């Protein structure tokens, strides 16, 4: 039971913001490089604790390509003091990083299957590393469907990149928004609508699904997946709870017997099914 300061899991490592850009009005992406030690290896779905000097620390999922070494990418929405400070960093700034923490999308274990990603809002960011993995290894999978819903055309994340995915002939990419004004030529409707359509043409038994977004959106999506015959042990979701330490000490992220930070954030749906429909757990 001895821990040296160098391995203290609460101590951040310093990273340099190599490049940052605005994705949406309140969302930015940053590319980071480690200033000390080795670059970070991570699995799709894992998260880091990002520290803004003088402001604080917040849990943010990793949104870059796990196959690209030496580049750590985070996409951050400004929803409070810490995320606001992080979303407004400039090129060359320094931030602190602890991680990576948590469970991963087991996408590499689902070879041979039809992979369906269902993303809602900013939920595309934690899914993107897994989507990269399937795109990079497309021949190992029977199919790739990405269904992405957001509030309005102005809220579509990585819009240009998603168009690029769509232009490939080996993908099925459905983008929808909850509301739109005339001029938007894409789909309008909640994410379950294109999801239902996409599933209608597929055998649910061959589908492995990865769902990330607001909890209600995930519950509705899981209903659609199950109705289409997708087995509950082939559905994974990513949960969000308050996190202060990311290492199972602070107690904030408990969900029943699980710590979201250590046992999650990615859970196989049958593991959390009992509690996820209950109020205030």
């Amino acid at each position, binding site marked *: 039971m001895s821990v040296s300061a160098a391995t203290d899991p609460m101590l951040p490592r310093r990273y340099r913001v190599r490049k940052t850009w605005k994705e949406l009005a*309140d969302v930015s992406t940053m590319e980071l490089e480690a200033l000390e030690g080795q670059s970070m290896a991570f699995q799709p779905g894992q998260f880091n604790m990002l520290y803004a000097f003088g402001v604080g620390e917040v849990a943010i999922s990793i949104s870059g390509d796990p196959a690209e070494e030496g580049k750590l990418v985070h996409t951050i*929405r*400004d*929803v*409070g003091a810490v995320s606001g400070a992080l979303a407004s960093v400039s090129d060359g700034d320094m931030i602190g990083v602890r991680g990576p923490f948590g469970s991963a999308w087991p996408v590499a274990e689902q070879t041979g299957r039809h992979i369906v990603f269902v993303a*809602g*809002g*900013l939920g595309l960011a934690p899914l993107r590393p897994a989507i990269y993995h399937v795109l990079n290894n497309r021949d190992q999978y029977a199919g790739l469907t990405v269904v992405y*819903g*957001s*509030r309005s055309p102005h*809220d579509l994340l990585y819009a240009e990149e998603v168009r690029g995915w769509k232009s490939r002939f080996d993908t099925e990419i459905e983008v*929808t928004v*909850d*509301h*739109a*004004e*005339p001029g*938007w*030529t*894409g*789909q*309008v*409707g*909640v*994410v*379950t*609508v294109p999801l*239902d*359509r996409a599933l209608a043409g597929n055998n649910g038994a061959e589908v492995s699904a990865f769902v990330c*977004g*607001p909890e*209600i*959106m995930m519950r*509705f999506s899981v209903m659609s997946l199950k109705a289409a015959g997708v087995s509950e042990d082939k559905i994974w979701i990513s949960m969000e709870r308050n996190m202060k330490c990311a290492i199972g000490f602070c107690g904030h992220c408990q969900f029943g017997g699980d710590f979201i930070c250590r046992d999650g954030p990615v859970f196989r749906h049958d593991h959390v099914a009992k509690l996820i429909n209950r109020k205030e757990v």
Partner: protein
Amino acid sequence: MEIHSVGEILAAHPVFRDFDEDTLDLLAGCARNEHFHADQTIYSEGDEASKVFLIREGDVAVEISAPNHNPLVVETLRAGDVLGWSWMVPPYQHMSGARALNDVRAISLDAVCMRDKNEDNPELGYQMFKHFVPHMATRFRALRLQLLDVYGTRRG
């Protein structure tokens, strides 16, 4: 000859594929082919719901307009979808508008013709409701999710 082909189209549609041939022939009597060009209004809010459309090709925007606002698109429909359910429920008026987003081909079923046939033949009426209600339930579920505005970005 054309009526027969409408019957075939009906038979292939998810809402009607479980109906027997006689029933489809009966309904085909209420049906006709429709074509709308891009940006054409299919119907407007408040119009009499005189038809229901089965979309065969193209995309349709369902819109609600407000005096001080551009019309808000609340839903887009595409091939295979049913457009309009007001034909089943009094006062048989459309509660939203519909506009073709691109070249749209559809089968329309005349509402009065359909309602008369259903009144005359309660078994047909029951079948019709049985197949339309799940479609409406799916739309209600989507509507609820939409109302929740789950991607809200309230600042903390």
